[in-house]
């Protein structure tokens, strides 16, 4: 895991890539993502479906290592 990756246990966000555009927030089918201007957090309702990983235009989100 890179030094810029913040891992909530649910999803990893590479903060050196994230441009805070909100693409993941609007796409999340469970409304589990919150973007407080520049800080992304995932709440417990996240089921790691991975749609945020694919929608992120720059590839800043990933599942934590070991997750399916």
């Amino acid at each position, binding site marked *: 895991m890179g030094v810029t990756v913040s891992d909530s246990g649910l999803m990893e966000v590479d903060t050196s890539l994230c*441009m805070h*555009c*909100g*693409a993941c*927030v*609007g*796409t999340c*089918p469970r*409304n589990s993502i*919150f*973007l*407080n*201007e520049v800080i992304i957090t995932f709440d417990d309702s996240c089921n790691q479906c991975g*749609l945020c*990983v*694919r*929608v*992120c*235009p*720059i*590839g800043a*989100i*990933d599942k934590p290592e070991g997750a399916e």
Partner: protein
Amino acid sequence: MTLEYDVVIVGAGPAGSITAKFAAENGASVLMIEKRQEIGSPVRCGEGIARYWIESVGIPLDKKWIAYEVEGAKIVSPNGTEFCIDERHAGEEVGTVIERDLFDKALARHAAKAGAEIMLKSTVVGLLKDNGKVTGVRVDQMGKRFDVKAGCVVGADGFESQVGRWGGIDTTLKAKDITTCFQYRMTDINPDPNYCEFILGTEAPGGYVWVFPKGKDTANVGLGMQLSKVREKGDPKKYLDMYIESDERFKNGKILDMVCGAVSISAPLDQTVTDGLILVGDAARMIDAITGGGIANACRAGKVAGEVLAKCVKEKDFSAERLQEYEKGWRAQIEERLYRDWMAKEKLVTLSNETFDKIIATLAEVGVEKLNVYNILKVIEAKHPELVEEFADLL
């Protein structure tokens, strides 16, 4: 002490500011809450808008936010065939290329001048409710948390919108109804200075590449692709980088700005109001599914919203029934085209490069008076009836 306003608007984009302007102008007390520290920045837009609709939403054209003006649109097929059309007939995104950060600030200024209050660096984190009716918002502002009561809350919080979902309006999108985008503003390049360019084909699966000039040697060069066609993380940026690599005109290009973002390319929602809450603009999924443009519709719906809300204030009635006037009002202006373009998009994303070549060649040869799905299909039907068979329900 709890703050209280007739109308509280979440988001200071075009939808929020135009709603605020018309509500305040007609007598409502209005607060607009924006989480960013600067309205309109960072820019998340290709910045193309047509000239003709602006004044109809009460905003005078202003050179301060117009970066560049083009003659029209150029649509390029995979084999390089070009079809050009005059800006007056090229739809709502073509005519001027704006400075979107200045544009959004100008709209907010119009709202402020009409009497609306504005709060920046303030994030709405949830809705207040009473018996199922929305009665206000909870705000985080620079280390403080407080509530603001409202007769009506307006969700103008853009693509990422959570306000609708918090209030019980389902705005969830399917992967096929989302376009994910990456864009560079590039300088020291050679865009065609006369046109906003749209490049079709598998270089941008289920979407297109755009080149919107901001000057003779500078342009917004972006790519949108359908989310359901994304295979690996980071594809939008990778596809754009590949495209730029392949186009000689960008050989010496230097990057001035990078933009990430997503737009909905969905059918219009069934419902955009509930007791004490309405949705406007991208939050209400009002983006055109073919072009991905949404500024015009956000402004049009904002005008209807502001006017209706001012009446609701006088009648002290923000029930879902009373708010139907907004629901009906915006639909009367834009719903039919939103729906038709969504239907057409469902087919367009399945077409091969060869079919795009034939379509653009036909348009280039025969011409079309005004660019819309119906006119395009009519022109193609005359020459290649087999190509429009699948679109029969749109004719």
